[in-house]
Protein backbone atom coordinates (compact mmCIF):
# COMPACT_ATOMS: atom_id res chain seq x y z
CA UNK A 1 0.00 0.00 0.00
CA UNK A 2 1.40 3.36 -1.04
CA UNK A 3 0.45 6.98 -0.42
CA UNK A 4 -0.14 9.27 -3.41
CA UNK A 5 -0.67 12.99 -3.81
CA UNK A 6 -1.66 14.73 -7.02
CA UNK A 7 -0.79 18.16 -8.36
CA UNK A 8 -3.30 19.39 -10.92
CA UNK A 9 -2.59 22.47 -13.04
CA UNK A 10 -4.80 21.60 -16.02
CA UNK A 11 -7.56 24.00 -17.02
CA UNK A 12 -10.79 21.98 -16.66
CA UNK A 13 -12.21 23.12 -20.00
CA UNK A 14 -9.11 23.47 -22.21
CA UNK A 15 -7.56 20.01 -22.10
CA UNK A 16 -7.94 16.53 -20.71
CA UNK A 17 -5.76 16.81 -17.58
CA UNK A 18 -8.52 17.05 -14.97
CA UNK A 19 -10.32 14.10 -16.50
CA UNK A 20 -7.11 12.03 -16.53
CA UNK A 21 -6.41 13.01 -12.91
CA UNK A 22 -9.90 11.95 -11.84
CA UNK A 23 -9.49 8.55 -13.49
CA UNK A 24 -6.01 8.14 -12.01
CA UNK A 25 -7.33 8.97 -8.52
CA UNK A 26 -10.07 6.34 -8.85
CA UNK A 27 -7.50 3.75 -10.02
CA UNK A 28 -5.25 4.56 -7.03
CA UNK A 29 -8.15 3.98 -4.63
CA UNK A 30 -9.31 0.82 -6.43
CA UNK A 31 -5.80 -0.62 -6.06
CA UNK A 32 -6.07 -0.12 -2.28
CA UNK A 33 -3.62 2.78 -2.06
CA UNK A 34 -4.14 6.04 -0.17
CA UNK A 35 -4.64 9.55 -1.54
CA UNK A 36 -3.03 11.99 0.88
CA UNK A 37 -4.05 15.21 -0.87
CA UNK A 38 -5.05 16.61 -4.25
CA UNK A 39 -3.56 20.05 -4.79
CA UNK A 40 -5.03 22.37 -7.43
CA UNK A 41 -2.73 25.04 -8.78
CA UNK A 42 -2.61 27.59 -11.65
CA UNK A 43 -5.62 27.14 -14.03
CA UNK A 44 -6.40 23.87 -12.25
CA UNK A 45 -8.12 25.87 -9.48
CA UNK A 46 -10.93 26.81 -11.90
CA UNK A 47 -12.57 23.44 -11.22
CA UNK A 48 -13.27 24.51 -7.61
CA UNK A 49 -15.79 27.16 -8.72
CA UNK A 50 -19.22 26.06 -7.49
CA UNK A 51 -20.84 28.38 -10.09
CA UNK A 52 -19.47 26.30 -13.02
CA UNK A 53 -22.38 25.19 -15.21
CA UNK A 54 -21.09 22.81 -17.88
CA UNK A 55 -23.67 21.40 -20.36
CA UNK A 56 -25.72 18.47 -19.03
CA UNK A 57 -24.19 16.03 -21.54
CA UNK A 58 -20.65 16.77 -20.34
CA UNK A 59 -18.99 15.42 -17.21
CA UNK A 60 -19.34 17.95 -14.38
CA UNK A 61 -15.77 17.91 -13.06
CA UNK A 62 -16.53 20.10 -10.03
CA UNK A 63 -19.28 17.74 -8.87
CA UNK A 64 -17.20 14.66 -9.75
CA UNK A 65 -14.30 15.81 -7.55
CA UNK A 66 -16.68 16.86 -4.76
CA UNK A 67 -18.48 13.51 -4.82
CA UNK A 68 -15.22 11.57 -4.72
CA UNK A 69 -13.85 13.74 -1.90
CA UNK A 70 -16.94 13.22 0.25
CA UNK A 71 -17.26 9.49 -0.42
CA UNK A 72 -13.56 8.69 0.06
CA UNK A 73 -12.65 11.45 2.53
CA UNK A 74 -10.03 13.06 0.28
CA UNK A 75 -8.54 16.52 0.82
CA UNK A 76 -9.06 18.82 -2.16
CA UNK A 77 -6.73 21.74 -1.54
CA UNK A 78 -6.76 24.85 -3.72
CA UNK A 79 -3.89 27.35 -3.89
CA UNK A 80 -5.33 30.53 -2.40
CA UNK A 81 -3.28 32.96 -4.52
CA UNK A 82 -4.14 31.20 -7.78
CA UNK A 83 -7.79 30.97 -6.70
CA UNK A 84 -8.28 34.61 -5.67
CA UNK A 85 -6.87 35.81 -9.01
CA UNK A 86 -9.54 33.72 -10.74
CA UNK A 87 -12.51 34.72 -8.59
CA UNK A 88 -12.63 31.59 -6.47
CA UNK A 89 -13.16 32.78 -2.90
CA UNK A 90 -14.51 31.42 0.36
CA UNK A 91 -16.68 33.45 2.78
CA UNK A 92 -13.70 34.96 4.64
CA UNK A 93 -11.94 36.04 1.43
CA UNK A 94 -15.19 37.39 -0.03
CA UNK A 95 -15.65 39.60 3.03
CA UNK A 96 -12.01 40.67 3.08
CA UNK A 97 -12.21 41.71 -0.58
CA UNK A 98 -15.71 43.24 -0.33
CA UNK A 99 -17.23 40.72 -2.77
CA UNK A 100 -20.95 39.93 -2.85
CA UNK A 101 -20.58 36.17 -2.41
CA UNK A 102 -18.25 33.23 -1.98
CA UNK A 103 -17.74 31.01 -5.02
CA UNK A 104 -15.78 27.97 -3.88
CA UNK A 105 -17.48 24.57 -3.83
CA UNK A 106 -17.66 23.41 -0.18
CA UNK A 107 -15.75 20.19 -0.97
CA UNK A 108 -12.63 22.26 -1.76
CA UNK A 109 -10.49 24.19 0.69
CA UNK A 110 -8.30 27.27 0.13
CA UNK A 111 -4.76 26.93 1.42
CA UNK A 112 -1.15 27.78 0.63
CA UNK A 113 1.72 26.17 -1.29
CA UNK A 114 3.05 24.83 2.02
CA UNK A 115 0.31 22.21 1.77
CA UNK A 116 1.80 21.03 -1.54
CA UNK A 117 5.27 20.72 0.02
CA UNK A 118 3.84 18.86 3.00
CA UNK A 119 1.93 16.49 0.68
CA UNK A 120 5.15 15.76 -1.25
CA UNK A 121 7.00 14.94 1.96
CA UNK A 122 4.20 12.80 3.37
CA UNK A 123 3.51 10.79 0.17
CA UNK A 124 5.39 8.01 -1.60
CA UNK A 125 4.56 9.52 -5.00
CA UNK A 126 3.46 12.88 -6.37
CA UNK A 127 1.90 12.72 -9.83
CA UNK A 128 1.25 15.89 -11.82
CA UNK A 129 -1.54 16.43 -14.35
CA UNK A 130 -1.30 19.59 -16.43
Amino acid at each position, binding site marked *: MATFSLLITANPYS*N*QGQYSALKFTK*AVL*EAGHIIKRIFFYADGVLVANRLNCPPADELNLTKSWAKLAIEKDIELTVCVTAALKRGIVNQAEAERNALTSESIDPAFELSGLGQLTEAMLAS*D*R*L*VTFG
Partner: protein
Amino acid sequence: MKTLFILNNPSKLTTCLEAMAKDDGLLLIEDAVILTRKNIERKEISLQALNEDVTARGVNHTDPSWQLINYAKFVELTLTFDKSVTWL
Protein backbone atom coordinates in the same frame (compact mmCIF):
# COMPACT_ATOMS: atom_id res chain seq x y z
CA MET B 1 17.19 6.81 -9.84
CA LYS B 2 14.69 5.64 -12.43
CA THR B 3 12.16 8.24 -13.52
CA LEU B 4 8.87 7.78 -15.32
CA PHE B 5 8.31 10.61 -17.79
CA ILE B 6 4.64 11.28 -18.49
CA LEU B 7 4.09 13.14 -21.75
CA ASN B 8 0.71 14.58 -22.82
CA ASN B 9 1.84 17.03 -25.50
CA PRO B 10 3.33 15.50 -28.69
CA SER B 11 5.15 18.73 -29.59
CA LYS B 12 7.26 18.45 -26.40
CA LEU B 13 8.72 15.04 -27.29
CA THR B 14 12.18 16.26 -28.34
CA THR B 15 12.93 18.14 -25.10
CA CYS B 16 11.46 15.28 -23.07
CA LEU B 17 13.79 12.73 -24.70
CA GLU B 18 16.76 15.02 -24.11
CA ALA B 19 15.97 15.06 -20.40
CA MET B 20 15.68 11.28 -20.12
CA ALA B 21 18.38 8.90 -18.90
CA LYS B 22 18.93 5.31 -20.07
CA ASP B 23 16.77 3.52 -17.49
CA ASP B 24 13.90 6.00 -17.56
CA GLY B 25 10.48 5.14 -18.96
CA LEU B 26 8.15 7.10 -21.18
CA LEU B 27 4.37 6.99 -20.79
CA LEU B 28 2.30 8.70 -23.46
CA ILE B 29 -1.11 9.99 -22.41
CA GLU B 30 -3.77 12.30 -23.85
CA ASP B 31 -2.74 13.92 -27.18
CA ALA B 32 0.80 12.45 -27.03
CA VAL B 33 -0.54 8.98 -27.94
CA ILE B 34 -0.57 10.05 -31.59
CA LEU B 35 3.24 9.71 -31.58
CA THR B 36 4.71 6.57 -33.14
CA ARG B 37 7.88 4.60 -32.42
CA LYS B 38 9.39 6.21 -35.52
CA ASN B 39 9.20 9.58 -33.73
CA ILE B 40 11.30 8.25 -30.87
CA GLU B 41 14.96 8.02 -31.82
CA ARG B 42 16.15 6.48 -28.56
CA LYS B 43 15.20 2.83 -28.93
CA GLU B 44 16.50 1.73 -25.52
CA ILE B 45 13.83 3.47 -23.44
CA SER B 46 10.71 1.58 -22.38
CA LEU B 47 7.62 2.94 -24.07
CA GLN B 48 4.02 2.72 -22.97
CA ALA B 49 0.80 4.46 -23.95
CA LEU B 50 -2.53 4.82 -22.17
CA ASN B 51 -4.91 2.53 -24.07
CA GLU B 52 -8.02 4.57 -23.31
CA ASP B 53 -6.50 7.68 -24.93
CA VAL B 54 -5.24 5.62 -27.89
CA THR B 55 -8.73 4.22 -28.51
CA ALA B 56 -10.36 7.65 -28.13
CA ARG B 57 -8.18 8.98 -30.96
CA GLY B 58 -8.61 6.02 -33.28
CA VAL B 59 -4.87 5.41 -33.44
CA ASN B 60 -3.77 1.93 -34.45
CA HIS B 61 -0.55 0.94 -32.71
CA THR B 62 0.69 -2.44 -33.87
CA ASP B 63 4.37 -2.01 -32.97
CA PRO B 64 5.25 -4.86 -30.54
CA SER B 65 7.80 -2.68 -28.73
CA TRP B 66 4.93 -0.44 -27.70
CA GLN B 67 2.91 -1.44 -24.65
CA LEU B 68 -0.68 -0.31 -24.17
CA ILE B 69 -1.74 0.02 -20.54
CA ASN B 70 -4.86 0.90 -18.53
CA TYR B 71 -5.17 3.25 -15.52
CA ALA B 72 -4.53 0.43 -13.01
CA LYS B 73 -1.20 -0.28 -14.73
CA PHE B 74 -0.50 3.48 -14.88
CA VAL B 75 -0.73 3.54 -11.07
CA GLU B 76 1.55 0.47 -10.81
CA LEU B 77 4.02 2.08 -13.19
CA THR B 78 4.39 5.18 -10.99
CA LEU B 79 5.38 2.81 -8.16
CA THR B 80 7.78 0.78 -10.32
CA PHE B 81 9.80 3.93 -10.98
CA ASP B 82 11.35 6.00 -8.19
CA LYS B 83 9.47 9.13 -9.22
CA SER B 84 7.42 10.56 -12.04
CA VAL B 85 7.93 13.74 -14.03
CA THR B 86 5.05 15.13 -16.07
CA TRP B 87 6.71 16.87 -19.02
CA LEU B 88 4.44 19.85 -19.69
